[in-house]
C-alpha cells in the first residue's frame, strides 16, 4: 500500500493524468464490449438487409427517383384495392394508415390509463399478479389472436349468434371486414404496449405527493388533475409513441379483419413485393420509416427525450 502511494506521489503530474485518462478509456471500452455481441448480430442480420432493401428504392429497376414519382402524382388508381378515387391513392393509403394508428392510440390510452392507474395503486405483489393478466395475450401470436377475432366477429360468429338468439338482431350484422373490426383487433393487441410504460411511470410517482396535496386542501379530483395526471404524462407520451409507431406498421390484423377499403401501407408494400416490384415496395417502406422517425422526433422535441423515457421523479 505504502509503495503504491509513494510511487504515485513521485510520478510527475502529467503522467498521472495520462494514467487516469487511460483508465477511463478502458472503462468506456468495457461497455462497448458488453454491447458488441448484440451489435454485431443487429448489423449483420438487420442493419445490412434493411439498408440493402432501402437502397433498392433508388436502384430498381434503374438508378434514380422514379420509384417516388407515383407518390407525387395528382391522381393514380389502385384498382386492386378498389380505391379508384380522384386523388393520389398512395397518399390516401398513408392517410388511412395515420388515421387508424391515431384512433387506435387514442383508444388504447383511454382503456389503458385506468388499468395502469389501478395496477399502480395496489400493492406491488398484487400488481405483479395482475400484470400477468395484462401480459397473457403476448403468449399467443398476433396471427392466432387475429383469427380469434374472426371467429368472434364473423357472420356465424359468437357475437352475431348471441345477438340473434336474444332477439336484438333479426339477421346477422356485418362485423368482420369492417374498419371497426380493424380497430378492435389492433386495440386488443396494442393495449399492453400502452399499459406497460404508463404503469412504469405511475409506479414511480411518490404516493406522499398525493397525500401532501390532500393535506394541503385538494379534493381527490384536484389531486388527480393537478398532481397525478401531470406526473404521469411522460408515461402517456412513451405509451402513445410506442403504440402509434407500432400501429403504423401493422399488417396481419388489418389484412384479416379489415374490409376492401381498409388498406394500410404495410399491405401495399407486401403487395408490391409479391409482384416483384422491389423498387416501389422499398420506396413505400422508406417513406413509412421516415414518417415514423419524423413522429418520433416531433414527440421528443415537443416533450424532451428525458421526459418521454425518463421517470416522473426526475
Amino acid at each position, binding site marked *: 500500500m505504502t509503495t503504491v502511494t509513494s510511487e504515485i506521489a513521485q510520478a510527475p503530474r502529467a503522467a498521472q493524468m495520462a494514467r487516469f485518462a487511460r483508465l477511463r478509456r478502458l472503462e468506456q471500452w468495457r461497455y462497448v464490449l458488453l454491447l458488441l455481441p448484440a451489435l454485431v448480430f443487429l448489423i449483420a442480420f438487420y442493419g445490412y438487409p434493411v439498408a440493402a432493401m432501402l437502397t433498392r428504392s433508388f436502384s430498381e429497376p434503374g438508378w434514380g427517383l422514379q420509384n417516388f414519382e407515383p407518390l407525387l402524382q395528382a391522381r393514380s388508381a389502385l384498382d386492386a384495392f378498389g380505391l379508384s378515387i380522384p386523388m393520389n391513392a398512395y397518399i390516401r393509403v398513408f392517410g388511412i394508415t395515420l388515421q387508424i394508428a391515431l384512433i387506435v392510440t387514442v383508444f388504447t390510452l383511454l382503456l389503458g390509463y385506468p388499468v395502469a392507474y389501478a395496477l399502480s395503486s395496489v400493492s406491488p405483489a398484487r400488481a405483479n399478479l395482475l400484470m400477468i393478466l395484462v401480459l397473457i395475450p403476448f403468449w399467443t401470436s398476433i396471427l392466432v389472436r387475429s383469427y380469434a377475432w374472426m371467429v368472434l366477429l364473423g357472420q356465424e360468429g359468437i357475437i352475431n349468434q348471441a345477438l340473434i338468439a336474444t332477439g336484438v338482431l333479426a339477421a346477422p350484422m356485418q362485423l368482420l371486414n369492417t374498419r371497426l373490426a380493424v380497430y378492435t383487433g389492433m386495440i386488443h393487441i396494442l393495449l399492453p404496449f400502452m399499459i406497460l410504460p404508463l404503469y412504469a411511470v405511475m409506479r414511480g410517482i*411518490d404516493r*406522499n*405527493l398525493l*397525500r*401532501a*396535496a*390532500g*393535506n*394541503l*386542501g*385538494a*379534493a*381527490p379530483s*384536484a389531486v388527480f388533475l*393537478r*398532481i397525478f395526471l*401531470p*406526473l404521469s404524462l411522460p408515461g402517456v407520451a412513451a405509451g402513445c409513441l410506442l403504440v402509434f409507431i407500432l400501429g403504423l406498421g401493422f399488417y396481419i390484423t388489418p389484412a384479416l379483419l379489415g374490409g376492401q377499403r381498409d388498406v394500410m401501407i404495410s399491405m401495399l408494400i407486401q403487395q408490391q413485393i409479391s409482384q416483384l416490384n422491389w423498387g416501389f415496395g422499398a420506396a413505400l417502406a422508406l417513406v413509412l420509416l421516415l414518417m415514423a422517425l419524423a413522429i418520433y422526433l416531433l414527440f421528443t422535441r415537443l416533450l424532451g427525450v428525458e421526459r418521454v423515457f425518463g421517470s*416522473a*421523479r*426526475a
Partner: protein
Amino acid sequence: MTDMDQATYAVSGAIGSLGARVIFDRIEKRYGSVVAVDDVSLDISPGEFITLLGPSGSGKTTTLMMLAGFEIPTAGEIYVDEDPIAAVPPYRRNIGMVFQNYALFPHMTVGENIAFPLQMRKMSKAEITRQSGEVLDLVGLPGYEGRYPRQLSGGQQQRVAVARALVFNPRVLLMDEPLGALDKQLREHLQLEIKALHEQLGVTIIYVTHDQEEALVMSDRIAVMNNGRIEQCGRPTELYDEPSTRFVATFIGESNFIDAVVERLDGTAVCVEAPGLGELRAPMRSGLTAGAPVMLTVRPEKIVAVGDENGMAADMNVVTGTVDDVVFVGEMRRYVVVLPGAQRLVLKAQNRRGVQGFARGDPIRVCWNVDDCRIV
C-alpha cells in the same frame, strides 16, 4: 400569548395563528395482526411544541398520519379543539404537514408549490402572491418563487416544505423527521430556526424524530414511543432526570443499570441489595415489594470518584471497583469501572485542575446521590 404579540402579527402580516388543542383518546391502529399504535392518549395544549420520539417502527408516522387523516384509527378518537375529526376528510382538516422527504411537487416551481394550498382555498391571485411572498420571507427564501424543487439544496427544500405547510395558516403543524436527510450542522441550525418560528407563530407543533438530542433541544414536551405505545410523556428535564422505564433511560442519554433485588421499603427510600455491592438506596417508587428483582439506573455524569471516606454524606450510594478503561473525550474523561460481581459502571469526570485522574487498573471509589438514581 399577550396582546402585544398579537399586535406584532397584525403588522407583520397574515401568517400565524393561535394553535389548536389536540387530544388523542385511546387511539389504536392495527394492520392485520400488527399493532402499529397501541392505546395512545395525549392531551396537547394550544401552541405546545410536542415531540414524538422513538426508534424506527415505533408508530410515530402512523400517529401523525391518523391526525392528518391518511390512516383511520381502529379504535379511539382524535379531537382538535374539542371536535372529533374522524368524519372529516384529510383535505378539510386544515392541518399543515411537513413530510419526511418534503413531498414538494416536482413539476411545480417553489411559487406554485406554495400557492397550491391557497388555490385550493379559492383565494384571489393578488392575495396568493402577497401571502406567498410573505411566507417565503418568513423562512428566509425571498425571491425563490421561480425555482424548481430540484434546483434547491436539501436545506432550502426543507424551508419550502415548511413554508408550504404554514402558508394557509393551519392551527396544527405536523413535522415528520423534517431534518432527517440533512447533515448535522444544518440540522442544528434549522432546529433553532424551527423553534424560533414556533415561538413567533404560536401554532401547535407535533414533531417526530428519532434523534433524542433534537427532541431535548426543541420540545416543550416529549412523548417517548416504543412498540406503538407511549412509554413516558413529559418535559425534557423530567424524562432525563426521572425516566420511568428502562427503555426511556436508555433511549434518552446514556445510563448505567445495576441488577438488584428489593430488600425493604422505608417510607421515603427503597433499599435494594445488589450482588457484591451491598445495600444501595433509591427514591421511593410505588408498586414495589420486597424480594422483587429490579434495576437501578444512574446517569454517568451523576457519578463522582471520591477519595477515602472524606465527608461521605448519608444520602450517598458508594461502591468500589477497578478502572477498566479510560477514554479522553475533550472536556471530560469517560471511565469504565468494573464492580465486584462483574457489573460495569460508566462515569464521566470533568477535566479540571484538581480532579484526580485514574489509570487503567487503578482501584476506584465512586458515589452518587440517592436522588440521582431511579428504580426501573
